[in-house]
């Protein structure tokens, strides 16, 4: 008979830290090792993507008692310092995904995490396509490239459970509460299509502050919008069963 173990994933996005709140978020992470095996951050860690803000985030996350995996969000790209911010985070012990994957050992189970910032474009039937102006084609091609990278990374990731970590949303259900007009800037169905094709157990995203926590891809994979304003708490914890 196989026994089941659980991997507990703490997740939050859009913490949007700055110098004025230094130390505040760290306080809310106290005791996280009692509640979770890993912490995942779904982007928008800063407000304007400055190096100062990036350093605040790195300090808040430094030497936590659980592994930390993060992706960046559009705000973290705003000052064109995304690579520098990622380096600061990596120096603090955070694994920063950039359209690639990592496997974490969680109490005897292997948890694969694949992802990156993601991007927009809209949702099936109501989305941009690679046609017309160069700017539109570039916009859509960027999302396509990301989706393709995730698909490859997922296929290459050997693990008991696989989670996709994104900033942008793969589905529109978790955007409910946001104005319809901005949906194309909040996510893309290409992300969901890629994950449905390659397979995963859970997709986490942020970005849609006024959205809804729970949704599903067309293929039936659970999606959770973990934007801090949506959760209304320091982080959510999702438990995935892992067969031994």
């Amino acid at each position, binding site marked *: 008979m196989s026994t089941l173990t659980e991997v507990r994933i703490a997740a939050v996005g859009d913490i949007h830290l700055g110098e004025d709140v230094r130390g505040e978020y760290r306080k809310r992470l106290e005791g996280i090792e009692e509640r979770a095996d890993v912490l995942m951050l779904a982007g928008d860690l800063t407000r304007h993507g400055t190096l100062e803000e990036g350093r605040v985030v790195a300090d808040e996350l430094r030497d936590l008692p659980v592994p930390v995996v993060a992706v960046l969000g559009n705000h973290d790209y705003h000052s064109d310092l995304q690579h520098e911010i990622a380096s600061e985070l990596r120096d603090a012990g955070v694994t920063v995904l950039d359209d690639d994957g990592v496997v974490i050992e969680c109490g005897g189970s292997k948890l694969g995490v694949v992802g990156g910032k993601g991007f927009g474009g809209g949702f099936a039937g109501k989305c941009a396509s690679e046609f017309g102006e160069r700017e539109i084609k570039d916009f859509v091609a960027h999302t396509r490239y990301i989706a393709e990278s995730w698909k490859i990374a997922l296929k290459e990731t050997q693990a008991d459970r696989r989670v996709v970590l994104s900033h942008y949303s793969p589905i529109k259900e978790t955007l409910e509460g946001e104005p319809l007009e901005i949906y194309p800037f909040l996510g893309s169905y290409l992300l969901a299509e890629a994950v449905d094709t390659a397979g995963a157990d859970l997709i986490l995203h942020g970005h849609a502050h006024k959205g809804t926590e729970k949704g599903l891809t067309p293929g039936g994979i659970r999606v959770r919008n973990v934007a801090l304003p949506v959760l209304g*708490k320091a982080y959510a914890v999702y438990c995935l069963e892992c067969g031994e």
Partner: protein
Amino acid sequence: MEAPQYVAARIQQALAEDARTHELGIHVDVRGDQLFLRGQVSGNDQRVRLGEVAHEAAPDLRMHNEIKVVVVNEPGEDEHLD
């Protein structure tokens, strides 16, 4: 075979009309043989009752009751994804 959208609509109607629940605004999704319930309610008893009514309306579907009980204090409850 009944289209999943119609099955979902029927379950949603049951949740709204059954005297045990009278709950509007529960999101019902049917994917293959699986039934997903989502939404927010103010207490665990109501969540359980909604699960019962939904199950009675579609006994052949495997139900995932993902309805959330609104918790004000930190850090809230864990969610078990089975």
